């Protein structure tokens, strides 16, 4: 099968859905002529024109508010938020307006918009351009959250998101835009709330999101050298979250580490770990371990930045500790 980059996969998904549905349009900063700083949208303005690939001034609350209104009145906006860190600027439009439109209107209105943005550290972008803030969004009822872990997921999940009748936020890892994966030529959709078992194992379950799926897979390879068989699960969407697949795996292996690049405290790892403990407690042979980013502003210093995020070696070390039945102290 052909291999394309995550960036190309996103571009393809957008082009296919914009051809399919004339009510779709892209709006954001530097989306048309520049094709975004990551060159993801290159060529789209040539095909669809500036009427459907709309460059805005630097004013996130403004274009996000425009998009919510446009979504409520019959179009399907695809908002491009240049950095996930800027989500703080659009919290009211996203969380107070878009997330609650369907509920507050008694079901008469919907806001079928997609917010595409990114996450991920270790790009030397500093504390204000390196955060992974998806947990903030996942906390708000009414918002779906997709976290593609490869080009294949990026395309399939984005197409599903565009067709969803309610707001969806997609977080792409900005370090993975040039990563290639097998992506079929023919059309496909990936349903929300269906986790993907990336690797089958029997001793320990590693649940990873976004690029942490790769970290989990590398950790599984390290562990395999030591005779530990790790299962790797990619939930693909954290809202909705496929607990059935996670529970099934944890009940088989009895042990679990949850890995996510958001800050560890009050984050996605905590939520998944808590659900496992509620739902599979009597099948656990050890505590569910959370591994997120350190609870610090992401440092600019490369040496410091690299140690703030989970690594395959760190995951493997914790997995060995869990297998050995050692205690985890704060």
């Amino acid at each position: 099968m052909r291999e394309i980059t995550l960036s190309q996969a996103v571009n393809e998904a957008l082009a296919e859905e914009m051809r399919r549905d004339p009510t779709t349009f892209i709006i954001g900063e530097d989306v048309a002529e520049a094709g975004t700083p990551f060159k993801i949208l290159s060529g789209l303005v040539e095909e669809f024109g500036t009427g459907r690939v709309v460059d805005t001034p630097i004013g996130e609350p403004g274009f996000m508010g425009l998009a919510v209104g446009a979504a409520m009145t019959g179009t399907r906006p695809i908002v491009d938020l240049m950095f996930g860190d800027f989500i703080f600027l659009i919290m009211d439009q996203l969380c107070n307006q878009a997330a609650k439109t369907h509920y507050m209107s008694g079901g008469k209105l919907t806001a079928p918009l997609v917010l595409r943005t990114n996450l991920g550290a270790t790009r030397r972008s500093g504390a204000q351009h390196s955060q992974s803030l998806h947990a903030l969004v996942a906390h708000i009822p009414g918002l779906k959250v997709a976290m593609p872990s490869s080009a294949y997921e990026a395309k399939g999940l984005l197409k599903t998101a565009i067709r969803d009748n309610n707001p969806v936020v997609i977080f792409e890892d900005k370090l993975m835009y040039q990563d290639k994966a097998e992506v079929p030529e023919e059309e496909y959709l990936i349903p929300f709330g269906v986790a993907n078992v990336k690797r089958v194992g029997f001793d320990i379950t590693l649940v990873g999101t976004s690029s942490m799926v790769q970290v989990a897979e590398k950790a599984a390879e390290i562990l395999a050298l030591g005779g530990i068989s790790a299962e790797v699960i990619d939930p693909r969407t954290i809202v909705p979250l496929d607990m059935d697949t996670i529970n099934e795996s944890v009940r088989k292996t009895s042990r679990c580490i949850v890995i996510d690049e958001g800050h560890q405290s009050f984050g996605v790892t905590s939520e998944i770990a808590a659900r496992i403990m509620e739902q599979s407690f009597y099948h656990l042979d050890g505590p569910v371990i959370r591994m997120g980013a350190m609870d610090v502003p992401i440092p600019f210093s490369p040496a410091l930045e690299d140690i703030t995020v989970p690594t395959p070696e760190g995951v493997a070390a914790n997995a060995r500790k869990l297998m050995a039945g050692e205690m985890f102290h704060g």
Partner: protein
Amino acid sequence: MVDVIMPALGMAQDTGKLLQWLKQPGDPVAVGDQLFEVETDKSVMEVEASEAGFLTQVSASDGDEVPVGQVIAVISATADNVVAAAAPKPAPVPDSVAEPQKTHVAPVAATVPAAAPMSSTGASTGRVLASPKAKRLAKEQDLDLGALAQAGHPQPYHVSDLEVLRSLPVIGASPSGQTVIMVATKQITARCPRQGSRDFIDWMETDGAITVVPTAIFASFAAGAFRAATEAALVVVQVSGPDKDDVFLRNPDYSRLSVPAPETDDDATFVLHDLSDSFLTSLRLGDTTLPTLSIGADGDSYAITFEFSSEHMVDDQAIAFVSGLARRLADPLHHLV
């Protein structure tokens, strides 16, 4: 290991209010470290540790009214078992009607020696730390994780430890059907002069022209003493020798000392180790599968050690058995009457 108790700080004081712990469970504690603050009618005092160790088994929380003298924690040698046993909260205490404190009384020692490190036969006193899965499987399979704790295996326990638990010696079953593992045996030791038995053997060999081995005498005397103590109809003595296979003797006290007792396939009633030809004086093997008797020579005395558990016989029978055996060894005439 010492208990930490609520001290009596006032003249007429029934309870103390534990204001706050100054150490957390598992914290290392040095002599003189402040452990907790206690509030009485008129004063707030800090109570110091009298021993070094780790603060464990904390059973009272900040704000609790605790009766004076109640154990609220233990200072132990290791940080293991920091979790308190599920101790009942102290009963609610009516508002104190104590006299206002008139004289200042220095805090008494906050600690008293613990009665015993751990009960030897009952369930372990602390809470057993185990994974939820290990606990569930243990429950489903009628296994007692407390036995692992008693056997000294480090906590917490996981599913793999259930294998160890299954391999521990299992004796009998409790009325609830749960298997019970006896780890501590009971022991009785005795000493008696050897001269009487020596003279007896000399007399048989010279006057009766019979060759007698001490082991046969020991087996015969022990069986006789055992029968007298327990009124057993059948006594099978498993004679364990250092260099040869064990021999199972059926009712050796019924045979003449000159004739070897008949061997049998029946299960042994108890094991006899004859140490009199060795430098060993006593054996304490802690094995509870069978009552075990050892007789060793120690100078001019026989040293008798008997190990048994309550599954085998009651204490009175065992005491009667050992004292009867010692009496026979000291003066073989007792065996004949």
